[in-house]
């Protein structure tokens, strides 16, 4: 029997320490609010969630998956096999130690790759501090273990050397186990628990679950003030963060120098749980960080100038979900942000100054700019759009949304209405019965106003017969389709690009010759990431025959225009503006047009000055193509084609 036998006991000791360390965190999580967790289903789904869903995200950064697979796989394999050495019959088995050697060797390769990511220079999005120790510990454990097991497998020719390598392995291994409470190794255990007890189990596999959860407005405390106000599995989620910084690299607010980094935010939420004894944060600071004075603790406020996170950080978020999309630990940043906002808004009334009027208006007259509901359809005067109240039912109910009050977006809506009329679609609008859908109120944390608007809208909608709701506003689409469900509203909602695609396919609309345009399509977050609709707008663009170019960040990983989550309203200053950045990305494609499909994106991107691509909604481009087709179809049209707008 060689020194390797002690490896087995080392692993036992490591497991003991790790359990003790994680138990300290478990006690903290348990102080959170209760949460319903389907334990058995979660446990059964764990391997799939890990091997498929997590790996899918990890693998987007090839370097990361090449590093993680050997280091984690090697670690687990080497430890499990070492434990097998506790079985007396196997303790002296040379082949067993040969296998252990293989496990540690794989881990050693991985540890080398981990080291390369951090030394001599770490990738900018990674954290320093405790995290810089990680490669050293991994290398020590892997190398020590490999040598110890390897020497034993060849008969332990040099016992003193084996003792030495065992000692090195022990230093590394115990160090790793100690990191389970507060350091990088926490992600392994907390991450596994998080996958089992995830607050949004439906997001795994092919599913999607992006609707904000409703809250009981009669609860004693609304929203989250202190760490213990979070449901316990959310606290667990924050602890799963491995500070890989992918979320930060994707965050538009971080990119333009607003004081937000989702990584820092999650780390702060994890640190706030334990209060004063939390290790310092080793990552990049919040850009233009506002100073905060507090230390936090389970029962201490999280948000505030004298707390852990500055309010400006909270209000910088556009709720674009780019962070959630990138997070390999499946953390739900946006849920946390909204829960925190809810407390600020509902309990303290601590909303940014510029958000006060819109919220007051929504409460007072159901429209964020204080305009009469009856004026919503004014832009369509003379177009002969029927109001459903007059006709009782229609195939399609056209939800106009906030964009109907915006001069620029009115052009889009008129184009859409023209297309519907050309295609003989049976549609109607709600007229003055359409209230704001509540998106803005909800993202700004005003759940009370959201719920009232939702219930009022649902009451109105229940009075009419229609098959589908059509909207050109992805925010309204998301709210009507996914978030009204929590309040009894179940609708089939279709985005205008998807409907136009249907009309083109069925031949109800036909387009003229190929358009000589180069177009790049900007995915709206609330259509793409929130609702998984990436194809229809692209199909429409292909159908009308424009040359389509993709921005580097597109589809699932597209960058936000800066218009969501009430960010234009809260207007937290940064170095530049998010739409400027996004427009620069569009310009990089050399396309002459950036196609949009959302009033928010339109307004934000239209606001960019300088030599930039033209902003056109998908509906406008299609109308142009359809009209071109009609003109071409008219024999001997003597005069140049004329656009008729009324």
């Amino acid at each position, binding site marked *: 029997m060689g020194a390797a036998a002690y490896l087995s006991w080392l692993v036992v000791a490591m497991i003991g320490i790790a359990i003790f360390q994680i138990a300290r965190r478990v006690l903290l999580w348990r102080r959170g609010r209760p949460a319903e967790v389907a334990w058995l289903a979660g446990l059964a789904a764990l391997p799939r969630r890990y091997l498929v869903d997590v790996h899918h995200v990890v693998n987007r950064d090839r370097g990361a998956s090449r590093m993680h697979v050997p280091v984690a796989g090697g670690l687990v394999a080497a430890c499990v096999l070492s434990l097998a050495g506790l079985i007396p019959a196997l303790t002296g088995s040379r082949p067993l130690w040969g296998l252990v050697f293989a496990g540690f060797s794989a881990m050693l390769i991985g540890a080398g790759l981990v080291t390369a990511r951090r030394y001599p220079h770490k990738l900018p999005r990674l954290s320093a501090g405790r995290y810089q120790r990680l490669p050293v510990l991994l290398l020590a454990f892997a190398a020590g273990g490999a040598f110890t097991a390897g020497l034993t497998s060849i008969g332990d020719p040099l016992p003193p050397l084996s003792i030495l390598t065992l000692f090195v392995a022990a230093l590394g291994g115990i160090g790793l186990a100690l990191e389970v409470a507060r350091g990088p190794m926490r992600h392994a255990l907390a991450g596994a628990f998080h996958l089992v007890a995830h607050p949004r189990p439906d997001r795994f596999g092919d599913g999607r679950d992006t609707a904000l959860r409703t809250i009981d407005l009669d609860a004693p405390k609304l929203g989250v003030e202190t760490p213990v106000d979070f449901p316990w599995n959310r606290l667990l989620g924050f602890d799963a963060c491995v500070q890989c910084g992918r979320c930060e690299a994707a965050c538009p607010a971080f990119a333009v120098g607003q004081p937000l980094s989702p990584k820092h935010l999650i780390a702060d939420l994890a640190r706030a749980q334990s209060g004063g004894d939390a290790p310092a944060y080793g990552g990049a600071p919040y850009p233009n960080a506002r100073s905060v004075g507090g230390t936090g603790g389970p029962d201490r406020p999280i948000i505030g100038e004298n707390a852990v996170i500055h309010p400006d950080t909270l209000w910088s978020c556009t709720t674009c979900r780019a962070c959630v999309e990138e997070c390999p630990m499946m953390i739900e940043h946006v849920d946390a942000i909204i829960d925190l906002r809810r407390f600020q808004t509902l309990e303290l009334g601590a909303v940014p100054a510029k*958000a006060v009027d819109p919220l007051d208006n929504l409460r007072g007259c159901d429209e964020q700019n204080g305009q009469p509901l009856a004026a919503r359809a004014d832009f369509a005067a003379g177009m002969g759009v029927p109001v459903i109240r007059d006709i009782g039912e229609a195939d399609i109910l056209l939800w106009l949304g906030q964009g109907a009050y915006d001069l620029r977006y009115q052009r889009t809506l008129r184009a859409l209405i023209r297309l519907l009329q050309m295609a003989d679609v049976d549609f109607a609008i709600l007229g003055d019965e359409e209230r704001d859908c509540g998106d803005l109120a909800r993202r700004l944390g*005003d759940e009370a106003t959201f719920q009232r608007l939702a219930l009022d809208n649902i009451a109105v909608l229940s009075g009419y017969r229609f098959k589908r709701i059509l909207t050109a506003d992805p925010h309204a689409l998301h709210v009507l389709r996914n978030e009204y469900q929590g309040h009894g509203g179940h609708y089939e909602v279709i985005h205008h690009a998807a409907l136009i695609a249907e009309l083109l396919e069925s031949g109800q609309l036909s387009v003229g010759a190929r358009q000589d345009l180069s177009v790049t399509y900007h995915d709206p977050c609330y259509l793409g990431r929130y609702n998984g609709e990436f194809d229809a707008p692209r199909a429409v663009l292909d159908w009308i025959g424009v040359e389509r170019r993709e921005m580097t960040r597109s589809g699932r990983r597209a960058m936000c225009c800066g218009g969501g989550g009430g960010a234009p309203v809260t207007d937290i200053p940064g170095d530049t503006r998010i739409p400027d950045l996004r427009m620069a990305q569009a310009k990089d494609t050399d396309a002459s047009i950036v196609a949009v499909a959302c009033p928010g994106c339109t307004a934000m991107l239209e606001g960019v000055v300088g030599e930039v691509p033209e902003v056109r909604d998908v509906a406008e481009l299609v109308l142009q193509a359809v009209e071109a087709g009609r003109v071409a179809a008219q024999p001997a049209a003597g005069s140049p084609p004329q656009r008729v707008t009324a």
Partner: protein
Amino acid sequence: MRVVVLLSAGRHPVSGRAILPPLEAQAIAMALALDPHCYGLHAGCTPDGVADAPGYGLPSLDLLTIDADVDPVPALAADLSKRKPDLIVAGRRGQGGNDTGLLPYALAEALHLPLLNDIVSAAQEDSDGMGRFEQALPKGAKRRVTMLLPAIVTVHPLAPAAAPFAYAKARRGTIEFREGPSGEAAPGLFETRSRRARPKLMRQADAESDGGGAAIIDPDPDDAARMIVDYLERLGVRRLRNEASRTTDHRD
């Protein structure tokens, strides 16, 4: 210093929904700065609208219940002369509900108190029961006024902003209902007349426009002109077909 805020049941200028007038939310902020235990007072039949006041931070709210058509001044005057606050803060004009903006003046007369209108800030002079105020004057001018308390002041919109509304505070706020004196119906100060009828032309236009206009692409200019003239005649905008008039620009 004991401060009371007079609250009225306003109406939202766009929706007509019962709300607390924004100026009175500012009045609450001003009163809170002077007296953290200030309270609100309203005379009316329901708490509609004023029930929002706790959401702006008002610690407590007394509601004197009176019938809908009863003049609130005697009820308020009776209550205020009993509780003798140092300062009565009110809005400055009617906000569309059953309020007239004259109430602070009527109350000042009934209570024999001085009234200072349009203040933008208030502070208590430390020593001698005097209040120090800033009053907004036209064209952005301001003047300082020092006045012996008790007094009534009305708040100007240039006063510091109200605290943002907090739903949970409004929900937790309690309203103490007290029966107000059953007084006489409010004196009819104004003659009510129905809104002026809309001009005949517009009414006709309204009746005619069924919305379903036709879009004609690339028509012959003469045809287009004729169609527009016809249309205008149908609407009654143009009464007689005047052969001499020429309509060339047909873009609508």
